[in-house]
């Protein structure tokens, strides 16, 4: 019976089953509550949505097969090792990308593709916003604008949070430290499969009435708003859980599964960056999950944490939110910085300059980022004396962040620079993140922040930092590791067109926003004073150019993946471990786990970074646990 079902395809876990499970779960959750309400308990729409979503999420995960292992384990049934092993997927089988596959390389690609899909969706929302803002007056409804803006922010934040660590990180970290997979492959797949439904929930929020609070979701506004608001809150908590789970996975992999000889100070700088990122994710995320849960309870269960009229504290939410969300901006930036620093030495053909200092800088960024959150609240009305230490710590973060620039500049200085596409993005990063960072210092200074807070100056600042670090890092990394991931080369000419077009359009979009902000243009408004019209029109036109340049990128990726020339194992002549195995790597990454004897940045000296183990070892088997 089970076999027959399995043959037919419906009986085996997969996307079809997952969708069915989600539908069924949603129906049970919401329907159960409705049935209860017919018995006299009043069910509010928010509660229906909440319970429905929770059950749908479980149904989805059950259907995709996320709990197969744990259910077997929990019921003390024998675990079929062969079947479990099959969850790695078969190399070359495209269907594994749509399944609960435990191979970290598949999961990396899933994250990466999902992130780009989200980027295009959220970017399209930005295009709508720029359409509205192109001219003073209203092109469409203000409600539509606010919902579009909030959705853009929420989705882009998700992109920035998961794309590099989830995508490139999952793909690369186990290989870079010389492991066969992540420490917990099944939890890893679970982290990924928690995302689709959450993302979908954000995407459909306009159907639920939209939400107009921005990504920051400050109460009491977020308590008044529509069901769309609740969709965002629940999705945010889901993404948070997924990110905690994957942080645990990263940290365990890095601290416990390195190949012999891979001491901490021999780890590639990207691995260090992601280690710091995962630590931030692990510690900070549950705080915001707590805050959003309280917000959700206020909305659906009638608590009064943030209800000023009933003794709650409105500012408390902001403290909890920023206690996470400031570290979160480093969760977004640090992976980008790591990717950039990984690429610099390869194309400058010089060792990474001041590697130990760069490691220390990442760690210090991580530590300091927990002490600066209140710089988002300089005009919120918190006690004046508290501004002073926060101003100090915020400005101090410039010192370790500046080290990244020292390292990059020190590496390219006197180097032999090859301007391949990834290296162009490195140079673009240096410029963009510099502008973003310096303008951050303007905001960190209270007297100037009073003027600039909540204006387009802030908007320009964070697009320069997030796009500068995360998106430039993501593009650089995607080009750089494209041959490794796909086994094919991308088109260099299109890559360069993408870079120049994007960089020029990006700068011409966001540089004028600093000026707009100084002139008094507020953020989160659909309309503005007439005299700012011409500049806004220019900004909008340039923004449309960003989209066109991204279209070139997408075309290049899709086409090269199918038809690009085959890539060698190590086309860049790089020294980190991932380039010492085939492109793409085999299912468990290495034929033999390498023994590491030096740092991966020995350019200019004979490479000794990785040597295969001297004695051939038995073929990797899969003994039962």
């Amino acid at each position, binding site marked *: 019976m089970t076999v027959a079902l399995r043959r037919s395809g419906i009986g085996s876990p997969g996307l079809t089953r997952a969708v069915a499970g989600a539908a069924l779960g949603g129906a049970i959750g919401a329907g159960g509550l409705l049935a209860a309400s017919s018995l006299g308990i009043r069910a509010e729409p928010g509660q229906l949505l909440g319970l429905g979503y929770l059950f749908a999420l479980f149904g989805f995960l059950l259907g995709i097969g996320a709990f197969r292992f744990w259910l077997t*384990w*929990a*019921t*003390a049934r024998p675990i079929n090792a062969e079947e479990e092993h099959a969850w790695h997927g078969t190399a070359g089988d495209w269907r594994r990308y749509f399944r609960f596959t435990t191979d970290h390389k598949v999961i990396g690609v899933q994250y990466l593709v999902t992130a780009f899909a989200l980027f295009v969706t959220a970017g399209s929302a930005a295009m709508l916003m720029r359409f509205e803002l192109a001219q003073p007056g209203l092109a469409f409804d203000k409600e539509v604008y606010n919902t579009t803006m909030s959705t853009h922010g929420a989705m882009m934040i998700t992109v920035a949070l998961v794309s590099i660590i989830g995508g490139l990180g999952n793909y690369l970290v186990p290989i870079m430290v*010389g*492991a*066969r*997979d992540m*420490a*917990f*492959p099944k939890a890893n797949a679970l982290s990924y499969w928690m995302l689709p439904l959450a993302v979908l929930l954000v995407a459909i929020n306009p159907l639920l009435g939209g939400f107009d609070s921005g990504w920051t979701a400050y109460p009491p506004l977020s308590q008044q708003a529509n069901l769309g608001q609740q969709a965002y809150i629940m999705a945010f908590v889901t993404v948070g859980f997924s990110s*905690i789970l994957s*942080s*645990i996975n990263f*940290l*365990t992999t890095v*601290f*416990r*599964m390195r*190949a*012999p000889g891979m001491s901490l100070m021999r780890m590639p700088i990207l691995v260090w960056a992601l280690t710091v990122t995962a630590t931030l994710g*692990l*510690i*900070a*995320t*549950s*705080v*915001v*999950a*707590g*805050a959003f849960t*309280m917000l959700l*309870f*206020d909305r659906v*269960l*009638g*608590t*009064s*944490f943030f209800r000023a009229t*009933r*003794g*709650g*504290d409105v500012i*408390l939410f902001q*403290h*909890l939110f920023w*206690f996470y969300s400031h570290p979160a901006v480093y969760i977004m930036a640090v992976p980008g910085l790591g990717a950039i620093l990984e690429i610099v030495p390869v194309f400058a053909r010089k060792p990474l300059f001041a590697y130990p200092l760069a490691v220390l800088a990442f760690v210090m960024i991580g530590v300091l980022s927990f002490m600066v959150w209140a710089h988002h609240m300089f005009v919120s009305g918190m006690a004046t004396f508290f501004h002073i230490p926060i101003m100090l710590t915020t400005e101090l973060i410039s010192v370790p962040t500046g080290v990244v620039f020292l390292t990059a500049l020190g590496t390219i200085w006197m180097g032999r620079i090859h301007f391949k596409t990834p290296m162009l993005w490195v140079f673009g990063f240096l410029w963009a993140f510099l502008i973003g960072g310096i303008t951050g210092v303007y905001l960190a200074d209270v007297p100037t922040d009073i003027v600039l807070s909540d204006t387009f100056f802030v908007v320009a600042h964070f697009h320069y930092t997030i796009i500068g670090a995360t998106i430039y890092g993501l593009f650089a990394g995607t080009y750089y590791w494209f041959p490794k991931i796909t086994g094919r080369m991308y088109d260099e000419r299109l890559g360069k067109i993408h870079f120049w077009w994007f960089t020029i359009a990006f700068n011409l979009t966001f540089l004028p926003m600093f000026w707009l902000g100084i002139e008094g243009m507020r953020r989160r408004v659909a309309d503005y004073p007439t005299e700012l019209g011409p500049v806004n029109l220019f900004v909008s036109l340039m923004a449309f150019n960003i989209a066109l340049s991204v279209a070139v990128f997408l075309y290049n990726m899709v086409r090269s993946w199918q038809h690009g020339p085959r890539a060698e194992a190590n086309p860049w002549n790089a020294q980190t471990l991932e380039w010492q195995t085939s492109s793409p790597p085999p299912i*468990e*990454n*290495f034929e*033999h*786990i390498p023994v590491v004897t030096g740092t991966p940045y020995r350019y200019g000296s004979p490479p000794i970074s990785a040597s295969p*183990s001297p*004695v051939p*070892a*038995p073929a990797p*088997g*899969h*003994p039962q*646990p």
Partner: protein
Amino acid sequence: MSAEALARHDAGGVVGDPEAEKGNMLFGVKLGIASEVMLFGALFAAYFVIRADSGSWPPEGFGGERPEILLPGLNTLLLVSSSVTMQLGVWAVQRSGGRHLLRWLGATIVLGLAFLSIQAYEYANNGFGLRDGTFGSIFYTLTGFHGFHVLVGLAFIAIVANRARVGLVSPAHHTAVEAASYYWHFVDVVWLFLFSTLYVL
């Protein structure tokens, strides 16, 4: 390198090495607990901020009474002893070959269930609800989150006990027992904080 060491090395720490897998699992559980600590940290922060905001505690205009200390005090005893029985279970499997493991796990479960029943009784007789101002919010959210963790912990222990029953736990193979014990001790410690802030202070 010996052939055996090489083989283990080639497994890359993922498959086939129970020692490494056990270490990974316990490391992961500790990290998970760290993150849970921050979750309760956020809730406690909310508690202290809101309490500092309102002049008196419970705040003025709060209809109900602050819960008595007797039952929660009893609950503290129950939970602390359950932590002890849990640890005895771990030692049983580590040191004396698992002879009394089931007995200790059973005791832990009974104590945990007693805790939850008393808590349920308290909820039913408190005379105030979740919607009764900030005191109600914070009280039920904190104890509710904690109670949920107790429930999850009990489920975990029950599963482990069942596996032990069918012979899947042995001195060489008891990662889950240890993981459950970490979690259970954590739940216990959170309760101590909860008890001292919500009921005593």
